């Protein structure tokens, strides 16, 4: 037992001293990816705070044409997250987003859908084998508690919408080559929203597949730049058992992230992302987001 504990401590020290914060990361984390907060193997508890602003909303119709967006002209968000690791390989996070939707004459604030996510590292990075990636399994659940377009009380301005209206479960895999200065990662997730009934009508959103490709460069031990693209495809909506034709959604987004580590326990991250940024998009929304995030390890 003591031997195992000693090995674990030694592994933590080696990982902490030799690789952090250079090697770790993931393809689908960060403000442009799926999960805003991840924990490195030597971190026990970590907090996350982000301020963001989204603007430039345009709708994209089924043919890919741009149209007037509904809802706010701008959306400000304050996101809080907390993460706890259970071992060198596993951690869980809870993320709570809050929003302020700013319309032409009014603004409405509210809490979005919380996200509970967990990751398990099935393949750890090895400093002696830079070509072996870190491989993580992802699972998450997002319970729907925020108002959506289906139960908005502000059906004209749509300023009280802070969620999708559907709980969803997600699973996926994240592969990250982070041992060298040049970095590369791929992630694939599948999300299944749960069926829900509004006003006697049953809605069943289709499966969503999200692919992420990320690359970047470690300029110094404290400065890293990442750029990534997402492709998100949804199989469309089924209403009362009938699939709605041309309701499939497609969104190609891009994000650029600049990381700065003031110390090994702190990270300041600036992200610019754009939804429906390139390629074919349909039944989605175009927007641009600026996010400034601060992460702090509170226990290693």
């Amino acid at each position, binding site marked *: 037992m003591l031997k195992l504990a000693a090995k674990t401590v030694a592994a933590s020290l080696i990982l902490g001293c030799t690789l952090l914060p250079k090697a770790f990361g993931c393809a689908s984390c960060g403000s442009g990816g799926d999960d805003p907060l991840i924990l490195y193997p030597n971190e026990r508890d970590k907090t996350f705070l982000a301020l963001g602003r989204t603007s430039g909303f345009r709708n994209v119709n089924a043919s890919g*044409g741009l149209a007037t967006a509904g809802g706010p002209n701008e959306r400000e968000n304050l996101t809080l997250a907390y993460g706890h690791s259970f071992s060198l390989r596993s951690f869980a996070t809870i993320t709570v987003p809050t929003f302020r939707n700013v319309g032409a004459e009014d603004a409405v604030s509210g809490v979005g859908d919380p996200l509970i996510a967990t990751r398990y590292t099935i393949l750890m990075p090895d400093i002696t084998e830079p070509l072996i990636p870190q491989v993580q399994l992802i699972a998450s659940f997002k319970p729907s508690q925020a108002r959506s377009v289906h139960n908005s009380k502000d059906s004209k301005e749509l300023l009280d919408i802070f969620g999708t209206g559907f709980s969803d479960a997600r699973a996926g895999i994240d592969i990250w080559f982070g041992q060298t200065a040049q970095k590369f990662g791929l992630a694939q997730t599948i999300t299944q929203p749960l069926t829900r009934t509004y006003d006697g009508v049953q809605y069943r959103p289709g499966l969503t597949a999200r692919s992420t490709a990320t690359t970047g460069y470690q300029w110094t031990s404290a400065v890293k730049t990442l750029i990534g693209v997402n492709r998100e495809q949804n199989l*469309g*909506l089924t209403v009362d058992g009938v699939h709605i034709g*041309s309701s499939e959604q497609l969104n190609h987004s891009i994000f*650029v992230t600049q990381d700065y580590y003031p110390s090994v326990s702190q990270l300041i991250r600036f992200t610019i992302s754009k939804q*429906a*940024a390139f390629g074919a998009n349909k*039944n989605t929304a175009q927007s641009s987001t600026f996010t400034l995030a601060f992460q702090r390890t509170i226990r290693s």
Partner: protein
Amino acid sequence: MKIKGLILVAFMGLTAAHCGDQGNNVTASNGSGSSALNHYTAKLDWQSPLAARTPVSAKLTFLASNGLPAQSVSNIKFNPWMPSMGHGTSTADQRITAVSGTSNEFLVTGIFFSMGGDWEIQLTATVDGTTDQAAIAVSVP
């Protein structure tokens, strides 16, 4: 190595910036739709420029199954619906009034599309004694 990384990041950033302005604007048009049981055809003529997030008006004309103007129309329900998103919009300010001197023409005012995109007008009406439903596709800019 650093220069290669910089070139890579700059190239991807420029590519993203140029790809941002894709897509054509949606164009709006008048439309018509036959009822599910072919009891009538409804025709929609927009009376004001079709736009999202501002009230618009339309003239609604009902033709009987033989193509002639319907003799009597009643119980009209006019429901804008966005099928791809599965939601409607506010109909609180919507008014339907008969055009004087006609039996089959109506003016619908206060139609409010909460966003642009592909909508349909879900119509229910009793035409010449028979109630039937129709859908008219509307592309809102």
